């Protein structure tokens, strides 16, 4: 999530989360809100370590919604949606990617701080940090 060097491959520990969209009338909703994007101001992001990180972050989870059921947490950074990279997306493009009418299920790759900690402790300190 931090230490991103432009031009270098990004290494992060990610978790796969699968969310089934819920039908509410005409719309398919996922039950969370996103913030961030390459056209947004990264300094206002309360969840990122690196205040220059322009990625897409989960800012709110509707309790009891599909995202909550799938264990998505507030503050997660969304790295991929259904195979599409989300780290270099504008806010609107990200929204469109998540709200495709033809898809019922979205498979996200998310990363959070606690994941790295967990991996480090489980591997006993031999984790190669980026």
């Amino acid at each position: 999530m931090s230490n991103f060097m432009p031009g270098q491959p990004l290494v992060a520990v990610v978790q796969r989360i699968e969310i089934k969209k819920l039908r509410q009338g005409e719309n398919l909703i996922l039950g969370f809100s996103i913030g961030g994007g390459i056209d947004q101001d990264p300094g206002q992001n309360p969840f990122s370590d690196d205040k220059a990180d322009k990625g897409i972050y989960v800012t709110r989870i509707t309790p009891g919604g599909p995202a909550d059921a799938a264990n998505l947490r507030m503050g997660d950074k969304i790295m991929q949606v259904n195979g599409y990279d989300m780290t270099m997306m504008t806010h609107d493009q990200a929204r469109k990617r998540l709200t495709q009418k033809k898809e019922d299920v979205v498979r996200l790759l998310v990363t959070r701080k606690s994941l790295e900690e967990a991996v480090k402790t489980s591997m006993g300190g031999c984790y190669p940090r980026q």
Partner: protein
Amino acid sequence: MQSPTVMDAEEEDEVLQVLEVCETIEEIREVIVTTIEEDSHNSPPVASSGTGTKPSQDDNWGETTTAVTGTSEHSLSQEDIVRITKDLEDSVGLDCRRYFTLTLAVILGLLVFLTPLAFLVLPYILWPEKLQTCGTACEGLFISVAFKLLILLLAVWALFFRSPRAGLPRVFVFRALLAVLVLLFVMSYWLFYGVRILDTQDENYQGIVQYAVSLVDALLFIHYLAIVLLELRQLQPCFSVSVMRSTDGEKRHYNLGQLSIQRAALAILEHYYCDFPVHNPALLSASKSRAAKHLAGLKVYNVDGEFPASPADGPGNNAAAGMAHSQSRAMIAAAARRRDTSHNELYYEEAEHERRVRKRKARLVVAVEEAFTHIKRMQEEDQKKTPGDVMDPREAAQAIFPSMARALQKYLRTTKQQHCHSMESIQQHLAFCITNNMTPKAFLESYLSAGPTLQYSRNHWLARQWTLISEASVTSGLSDGSIFQLKCVDFSLVVTTKKIPYIQMSEEYIDPKSHKFVLRLQSETSV
């Protein structure tokens, strides 16, 4: 000088006894200082109480002890005598030089003005019958000559006929050059005139008149050159000079143009009289007494008894020099090692002095405000009511002065300014303030802070005789890093110059349409 005897602190008549013994008042000053210091050291064992007492300086000691604070109204110190003899010596030489230059200038001026007229008049005197009659164009040239001469006269009067501000040590180079140029120029015109016109007795009068007109034109151009060289060249500031007074470190900075060192010194001195606070020697006595105490603390005794023999060459001389060196080094080392508490004394003394000054200032302000309430400006209706005591400003000042006199005198003594202001000058100032409807605070301002030297009476800026000490020639121009000194009898001003740097500026064009802004976005969308 006889060594002062030990005496009690309260016996002022014994202090007067020492006065009679010494020769000049300068020595008296030093004697008094050291005596009182010794008193302060000796009093604890003498006094029966034995508690650690400060030097006995209560509020009244300034009034009862005599001749402590330097020169009184009618005394004459060594410095004054030196100053007066120098004035007498130098006044004679300076006047001779001034008159010499004045006569030279007058002769040159007359030569310059009469030459064109002579060119015009001489043909009529010498060969009137051969001359062609002066036609219209020729007579028109007469008018031109007349007006150009008038303009030249006014211009020369404006530029050169000003009362000299000062007498400088060396000749003013540009003026001398200009005088030589004018002389050469006029001489060459006369030469040509003499050879080609007088000898051949030329009949073409119009040519002669045109020749005279060209002379006057060229003289006007030389005058233009004089303006540029003498006045315009040094207007643009080129150097920043810092002037520091040697006695108390007062420092000012001025911007000067390209001047010679002596003219720069003159400009600096004129600024000095207007800007620098007046030189007060009484304020320096404290540091001098501290320095005297440092020196008096240690004495070097030669225990081994090796006295240097008569100065022999080679090793003998080195031994004598080496001994002097080792003596001074030993003194410095011992002084460094000694646990010196004089800084402590200085701190407490200064705090005490500050407190005393503030207390006296408070008393003074109250006394003056009260004194000013005793009089008021007479209105028309008062004249009808009480035709009694009507006073002019001087009498009014004299009426209210006694009520504030004591407080003012004490304040001036505490801040060591009492020799700058005489009773007469204070009363004059008070009358002036009353006439101009000033408040008590306005009256007091001139006593609370030291003003520039010019504001005081003449005997405080008696140092009109200044000596310029410079390693470079005084007629050479100022340059970066040149240092010179202006010395008068009491102190000296040290002047250093720095050149204002050459500034290289480049431009950057900003299109007014290029000022564009965007909002900082942070949106949150729910999906």
